[in-house]
C-alpha cells in the first residue's frame, strides 16, 4: 500500500510540475512571448521591451495587488523616465478584459495592462502570485524575480526590493537580492486539458 501511495503522489507531483513548467529563470534569457491588448489585438514582448524591462503580474480583485496600485504608478513615474519599459499583465482567468480596463481606468494607471490569456506567459515565468515582478536587462537576461517591497502595508516597508533591483540593472550591476518572496493572491489559472 505504501508503494502505491508513493507512486500516486509522485504522479500527482509530476502532473502538477508539468502544469507550471517554468522556462524563464534568473540568469537565463527571456525569449519572445505574446500578450493580448485589452481591445483584443495581439502584441509581442519583443515590441514592448526596452533597454531594461519590468514585467509585472497584477490583479483586479486581489487586495494585496490593489494595495500596491499607487506604488505601481509611482514606480512608473520614477522609472519610465529612466528608460524602463513596463509590461504589466493580468493572467487571472477570473478577470476578463472589461474589468481589467475599468480597474486600470479607475486607478489612472499610466501604463498599459495586457491580458495573458490562459496564463501562458505566467507559466513561462513561473508566476504564481499577484503582485509578482521580473526585471530583464538590456541583453534580455532575467536579473530579478520577486516582490515590489517587503510589506503590503506601506507604513511597514523597510526594503524597496524592486527599486533596488531596477537601480542595479540600470547601472549594469547585479541586484543584491535576485529572488525575493511575499505573501499574495494566487494567480487564478485556466484549467489545463
Amino acid at each position: 500500500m505504501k508503494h502505491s501511495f508513493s507512486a500516486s503522489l509522485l504522479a500527482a507531483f509530476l502532473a502538477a510540475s508539468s502544469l507550471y513548467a517554468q522556462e524563464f529563470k534568473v540568469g537565463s534569457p527571456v525569449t519572445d512571448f505574446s500578450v493580448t491588448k485589452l481591445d483584443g489585438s495581439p502584441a509581442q514582448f519583443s515590441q514592448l521591451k526596452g533597454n531594461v524591462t519590468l514585467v509585472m503580474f497584477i490583479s483586479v480583485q486581489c487586495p494585496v495587488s490593489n494595495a500596491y496600485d499607487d506604488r505601481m504608478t509611482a514606480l512608473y513615474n520614477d522609472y519610465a523616465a529612466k528608460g524602463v519599459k513596463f509590461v504589466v499583465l493580468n493572467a487571472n482567468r477570473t478577470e476578463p478584459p472589461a474589468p481589467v480596463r475599468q480597474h486600470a481606468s479607475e486607478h489612472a494607471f499610466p501604463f498599459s495592462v495586457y491580458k495573458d490569456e490562459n496564463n501562458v506567459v505566467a507559466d513561462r515565468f513561473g508566476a504564481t502570485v499577484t503582485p509578482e515582478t521580473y526585471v530583464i536587462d538590456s541583453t534580455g537576461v532575467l536579473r530579478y524575480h520577486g516582490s515590489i517591497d517587503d510589506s503590503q502595508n506601506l507604513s511597514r516597508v523597510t526594503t524597496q526590493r524592486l527599486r533596488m533591483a531596477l537601480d542595479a540593472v540600470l547601472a549594469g550591476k547585479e541586484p543584491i537580492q535576485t529572488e525575493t518572496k511575499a505573501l499574495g493572491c494566487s494567480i487564478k489559472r485556466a484549467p489545463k486539458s
Partner: protein
Amino acid sequence: MTRRGLLLACAARALAAAPSLIPLDELAFRRMVTSHRGKILLVDFWATWCSPCREELPKLVDLYTAQKSKGFDLTTISCDEPEQQASAAHFLQTQRTPEPAYIRHATSDDAFINAIDPKWSGALPALFLFDRKGAVIQSFIGETDMKLLEKTINKALAS
C-alpha cells in the same frame, strides 16, 4: 435598547469572545508541526483578504470533522497583517475551526515562506499536508481541488 444598539452589543460580544490567535514564526511553526506527531496534519495558510481561502475553509472544517477520529488534525495560520487580527479571529470563530489557531509573526516574509517550503512562492491559499512523522506529504497552492485533497488525506490516514 434600540435594535441598532442590540446589534452593536451582539457584534461587540462576538468580537470579544473570538479566540486570540497565537503569533507564530519559523521556529514556532516547526515546534507546532512536531507537536502533532503521530497524526496526519493539514496546515492551512489563509488570510481574510484571500477570497478563495475564506471559501474553502468551511470545507476544510468539514474534512476535519469527518476525519479527526481517524487521527487527522487541522491547523490554521492566518497570514493577515496585525491590524486584521481581530477580524481573522472572528472569522475563524464563525467557521468553528479547531484551536489553537495561529497568526504569522515573522520579521521577514522571505525567511518565513522559505522555512515552510522553499518551493512556495507565498501565494494563498496554501495547504501543506504532513505525515505522522512531521514530513510534508504534499502541498496544495492556490485554489484547492477538494476531491484530490480528500483522496490524499484518506491515503495518508490509511498508510
